[in-house]
């Protein structure tokens, strides 16, 4: 396998959208264990970048760094070209990077509005209202309906508790919340896991729509058919290293499986850019 140092990293194609978030040489060590090694990639507005790899490949570690849940041992993050340090998830959110975790982080006893505004409640503008933290429930409901409408989630009544919703609907609410507060980058950790076929379809449609809004989406998934369907580019991690970064049209599920498992060896070493000529214009192959 070629390392980042060994492989030239071609710049983006002239017509490629600007990178909104860039990772440069990210390495994460836990004691003597290297969970992530010298990973460089960029995220562009209005694209879905799928992050695939076997268990322990480093996907979660990379996601934690991008979401501000941990800091890299080495390497830098650039937001809109500016070097940035995320000291916590709040920093990431402030920089426009939202994460929908696998557990969705929803308060199931609160309604849709309550979840959308949890921690960001709108209070009455009067002085007593501000002092008491008096909720402006009408305004929150109105904004919730508008936010859901924007991502085309049809909710007849936003006062429904999230605990009463199906898995797909909860996922939709979580994504809507993330997009409402952070439009730049959306990190999705296994959004279709444990969902029925119809619900998976709804979530994929939603991701597609969010992409259309110009948001950069990072999709961590084990479900390669979904990756092939929705992603614009695919990044393959194996044992903490980025072993491939390619346009989706240039790879097949079989090829991805080979790269994920490493059973086929490292085609990259032969050419440096094995997956497709198109790949060269998008950051190359590690």
């Amino acid at each position, binding site marked *: 396998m070629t390392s980042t140092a060994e492989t030239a990293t071609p710049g983006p194609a002239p017509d490629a959208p600007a990178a909104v978030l860039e990772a440069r040489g990210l390495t994460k060590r836990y004691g003597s264990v290297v969970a992530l090694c010298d990973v460089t990639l960029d995220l562009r507005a209005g694209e879905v970048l799928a992050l695939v790899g076997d268990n322990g490949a480093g996907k979660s570690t990379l996601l934690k760094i991008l979401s501000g849940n941990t800091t890299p041992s080495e390497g830098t993050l650039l937001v809109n070209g500016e070097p940035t340090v995320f000291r916590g998830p709040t920093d990431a959110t402030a920089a426009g990077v939202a994460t929908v975790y696998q557990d969705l982080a929803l308060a199931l006893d609160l309604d849709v509005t309550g979840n959308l505004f949890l921690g960001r409640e709108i209070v009455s503008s009067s002085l007593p209202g501000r002092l008491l933290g*008096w*909720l402006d429930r009408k305004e929150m409901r109105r904004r919730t309906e508008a936010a859901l409408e924007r991502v*085309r989630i049809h909710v007849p009544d936003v006062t429904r508790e999230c605990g009463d919703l199906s898995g797909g609907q909860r996922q939709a*609410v979580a994504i809507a919340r993330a997009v409402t507060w952070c439009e730049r980058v959306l990190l999705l950790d296994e959004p279709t896991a444990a969902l029925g076929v119809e619900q998976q379809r709804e979530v994929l449609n939603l991701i597609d729509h969010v992409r259309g809004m110009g948001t950069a989406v990072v999709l961590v998934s084990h479900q390669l058919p979904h990756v092939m369907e929705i992603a614009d580019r695919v990044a393959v991690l194996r044992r903490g290293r980025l072993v491939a970064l390619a346009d989706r049209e240039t790879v097949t599920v079989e090829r991805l499986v080979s790269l994920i498992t490493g059973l086929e060896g490292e085609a990259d070493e032969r050419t440096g850019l094995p997956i497709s000529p198109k790949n060269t214009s998008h950051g190359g192959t590690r």
Partner: protein
Amino acid sequence: MTQTQPSVRITAPRLTAVGERAGSLWTLGVLVLIVAAFFVAVPQFHSKAAWVATSLAATEVILLSLGQTFVVVGRGIDLSVGANLGLSGMVSGWAMTQMLGGTGLSQAAILVVGAVVAVVTGTLVGTVNGLVVTRLGIMPLIATLGMMGAATGVTQLINDGQDISTLPPDIFAIGNSAVLDGWIPVPVLVTVVITAGAALLLHRTRFGRHCYGIGSNPEAAARTGIRVGRHTTAVYALAGSLAGVAGFLVMAQLASASVTAGQTSELSAIAAVVIGGVSLFGGRGNIAGAVIGTLIITVLQTGLVVASVSSSWQTITVGVVLVAAVFADQQRLRLARRT
């Protein structure tokens, strides 16, 4: 990918909301049945004296239940509220006794200071509970159990295990005067006002919303930027302050700071909120339910006293009602989810 119109339709029935509303009605129905049963079976229950005794007894437990509701909705529990009530009353009584000894303050001023001392003491005890839970990471059950023991011990130390009866004489008027031809005792009025305030705080403010958020999913609440530890500490402090108010009112009713005041009241408060539909797993419940739960317990207790039922049977009855109420509530929710 083929461009399709994303449309996630959220059309699930509002099972939980429907269930919760039905739960409040159900507990209200139980309360009405109990009151009706005592009305029919026990003639003395119709008297003004029985009503005043019941309402006064309810004030103590309601104040503790209000605080307990905030704590339990936020996924905690406070076993120390009863002991805190006793300690707050005792510290307040001791402070007022000291002031009577020649500070030159009027009785009214001393009573105001005494009330403030009771509330501050209760708040401090609650704050310590909150800090022990959030900073030391001790389970709420254990932390507040420890505080219950400590507060009970300090209460006994203050006056060598003796009640304090040398209070300003006017305190008796606060605890025992009434309005509307003697039907509404002053402590009941105070409790009604505080209950309304607590309901607004829990259901209409950011503070209350955070209680539900933390109780429902503390990790999710933390990820949104809510300072879970600070909020939880504030909730325990609030429960403590309400115990302080209850301590002062109980002392006013007895015209004495009693070393046994509040003993086992925490159990009544916990039973009341559970009967009222507040989930011990956090995130669910409301003030109306807690008040109805309290009234069920209080009416049962005083009704049985009026009916001359022995104290042993009173305790057994309340225990059976508690378990039956929780069981029926679980069945009702299961049924709601199934349909």
